[in-house]
């Protein structure tokens, strides 16, 4: 095999890239995984994971220098001194906001699999049918039955803990034992589940293992997942897919590899490889392979396609549909309600659980009808308040200190996560004027939520108030902390799947219609966003697409 030639190339090493590498290498394909950022070695490079809070000079907070250096990241919670290295350098890699878009990027081996929220839910048949039934955008080219076995496959390997709750709108999977609700959550769940036919409050399904799996130790309830887990307690590229891929002997991992374009042969109508810039020495290198998996995260995967085959299509590979870069989605959230639980002063909990209960979507399902389409679910939980509370009558002194050293009032809160529709006009384009550190054109992002989401947000708050009130919670208050596109960190849709090459970028097997040996299996491929967290679906779609690619290779079709 000539140098720089492999059977397969994977662009990106996050959740879906890691899965692509694992599946390809396990099927015997010599694979190179290209990652634009630095390497992060499992355990060894989790430099903050075993530090205590008091070992950080600002106790985890943010300095003025950090605020200056990270003008985007500072907009929400991710900017902190504990894992600053795992968020993209905004000066090196800028982007243009036609409208405000909070793009929180993880540019390193493992990508955002190191940082993700780990909530893991299957999509239901209702989600896959939704676009067709509502006449919105285009129909998904697959249905639940097509992905069901791949969800099982992904769950078994990734390790998802949760209960089998028997709900058609949130299908059960192959779960490890669920984490436990605390006393208040159990009682609130009982009351909500008794009162409402329409929904269920269940324990969150999460990619933290409750039993050992592979070489991984079960979750130790430290709740420090975003610092990397030395126990391998949660699914990440480093804890799960990368060791499996490495064990095959078929994987080459190349950090500091910024993919500039996919090389395309217009005679064969296939990609031949990719061209990269080495982020350290600025040299250009070409890599060749029979198949290419694009897993650079939704916006960057579309960016790569836009920069590829521009001699054939000025808008790039996949642009013949007119949909490349369009239909950008996310989940909107940061609104809900919270209140206090009374009568539990003699109850407490032990351990820091990195998970909480989930309230399953019910809007516009079964008999429920709303003045908007689609819906939302809630994530939240109950806890006793800590030292940062006010105590009436006690403000200064020893009694105040001792009172703050004890757990305070129980409270419970829920935040809704809502579906965003795929709007053609929510899009990314290449900005001709702005270049990054490597001279590459940057994306301009132009997206916003519209009437449907704004109408939904009212219910997201009001329904939470109603549910908590019915559950006997006191002093219930709604809130809306505001949302702008991107904050959900669930970018989706910029190279959507579909049934027709005229209206979609990818077919039902995640192949680019215009280059059948190029597969896109990250958030870019999503035809709609549903209301549940999307990463488990990327895992399943990736494994499914690799299986398909391998069969096509065998048949000589690729």
């Amino acid at each position: 095999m000539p140098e720089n030639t492999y059977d397969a190339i994977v662009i990106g090493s996050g959740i879906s890239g890691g899965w692509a590498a694992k599946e390809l290498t396990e099927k015997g394909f010599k694979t190179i995984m290209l990652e634009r950022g630095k390497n992060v070695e499992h355990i060894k490079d989790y430099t903050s994971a075993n530090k205590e809070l008091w070992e950080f000079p600002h106790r985890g907070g943010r300095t003025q220098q950090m605020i200056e250096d990270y003008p985007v990241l500072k907009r929400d919670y991710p900017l902190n001194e504990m894992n600053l290295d795992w968020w993209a350098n905004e000066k090196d890699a800028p982007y243009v906001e036609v409208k405000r878009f909070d793009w929180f990027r993880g540019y390193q081996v493992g990508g955002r699999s190191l940082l993700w929220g780990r909530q893991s839910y299957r999509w239901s048949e209702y989600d896959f049918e939704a676009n067709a039934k509502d006449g919105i955008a285009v129909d998904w080219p697959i249905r639940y039955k097509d992905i069901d076995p791949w969800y099982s496959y992904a769950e078994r390997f990734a390790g998802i803990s949760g209960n089998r709750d028997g709900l058609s709108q949130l299908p059960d999977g192959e779960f490890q034992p669920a984490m436990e609700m605390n006393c208040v959550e159990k009682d609130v769940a009982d009351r909500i589940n008794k009162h409402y036919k329409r929904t269920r409050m269940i324990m969150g399904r999460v990619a933290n293992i409750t039993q050992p799996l592979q070489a991984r130790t079960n979750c130790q309830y430290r709740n420090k997942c975003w610092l990397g887990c030395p126990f391998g307690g949660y699914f990440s590229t480093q804890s799960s897919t990368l060791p499996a891929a490495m064990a095959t002997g078929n994987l080459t991992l190349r950090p500091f590899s910024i993919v500039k374009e996919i090389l395309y042969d217009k005679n064969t109508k296939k990609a031949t490889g990719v061209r990269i810039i080495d982020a350290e020495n600025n040299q250009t290198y070409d890599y060749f392979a029979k198949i290419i998996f694009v897993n650079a995260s939704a916006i960057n995967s579309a960016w790569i396609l836009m920069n590829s085959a521009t001699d054939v299509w000025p808008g790039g590979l996949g642009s013949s549909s007119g949909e490349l870069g369009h239909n950008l989605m996310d989940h909107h959230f940061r609104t809900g309600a919270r209140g206090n639980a009374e009568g539990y002063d003699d109850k407490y909990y032990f351990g820091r659980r990195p998970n909480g209960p989930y309230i399953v979507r019910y809007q516009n399902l079964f008999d429920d009808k709303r003045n908007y389409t689609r819906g939302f679910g809630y994530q939240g939980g109950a806890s006793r308040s800590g030292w940062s509370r006010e105590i009436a009558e006690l403000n200064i002194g020893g009694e105040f200190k001792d009172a703050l050293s004890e757990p305070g009032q129980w409270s419970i809160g829920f935040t809704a996560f809502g579906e965003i529709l795929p709007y053609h006009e929510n899009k990314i384009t290449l900005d001709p004027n702005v270049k990054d550190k490597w001279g590459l054109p940057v994306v301009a992002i132009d997206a916003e939520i519209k009437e449907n989401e704004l109408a939904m947000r009212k219910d997201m708050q009001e329904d939470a108030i109603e549910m908590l009130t019915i559950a006997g919670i006191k002093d219930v208050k709604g809130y809306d902390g505001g949302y702008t596109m991107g904050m959900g960190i669930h970018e989706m849709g910029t190279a959507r799947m579909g049934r027709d090459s005229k209206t979609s970028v990818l077919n039902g097997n995640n192949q680019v219609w215009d280059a059948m040996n190029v597969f896109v299996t990250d958030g870019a491929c999503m035809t709609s966003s549903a209301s549940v967290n999307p990463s488990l679906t990327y895992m399943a779609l990736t494994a499914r697409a690799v299986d398909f690619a391998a069969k096509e290779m065998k048949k000589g079709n690729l």
Partner: protein
Amino acid sequence: MDRREAVQYISLLLGGTLVGANSFLTGCKTKNEVSYTFTDEDIAFLNEVGETILPATATPGAKAANVGEFMKVMVNDCYEEKDQKIFHEGITNLQNESEKKLKTSFMQATPEQRHDFLVALNKEQKDYTSGKKADDPAHYFRMMKELTLLGYFTSEIGHTQARRHVPVPGKYEGCIPYKKGDKAFT
């Protein structure tokens, strides 16, 4: 902090019940230029202010956790310049007020005098804060109190002595008995 926690913080912030942790989430806007310096006397003074807010009881107080030094780091690195100014002027203000009301310096006053003095100052701060508009300047004593709480409860003493700190819990138990007086888990 992950998103679940962040979301809880946001809802608490909007509920207005959170003191001290604001600096984790609210961004500041301007570049930091350290134009104020903390002397050793300032730090000793701030440790005494902190100790009055959170004194040693059965567990060590704020001075043992060196909250004075922590305040210096946070004000220098994390505060906007206008807030640095308020904080530094606050050190002088607090000393002047003490001279006026106690007829002695804060450092010379007895723990009881200091306590009563800061109780009154805290009331003044609370009244001011509850009436202030978003853009109005913060009260210096609110800053000192917030930083004392943050500095103490995020310190090693605040974790391992004031509360119960289990670095690796290993399990989660959702419903265990609690009796008044038991310390919180970190």
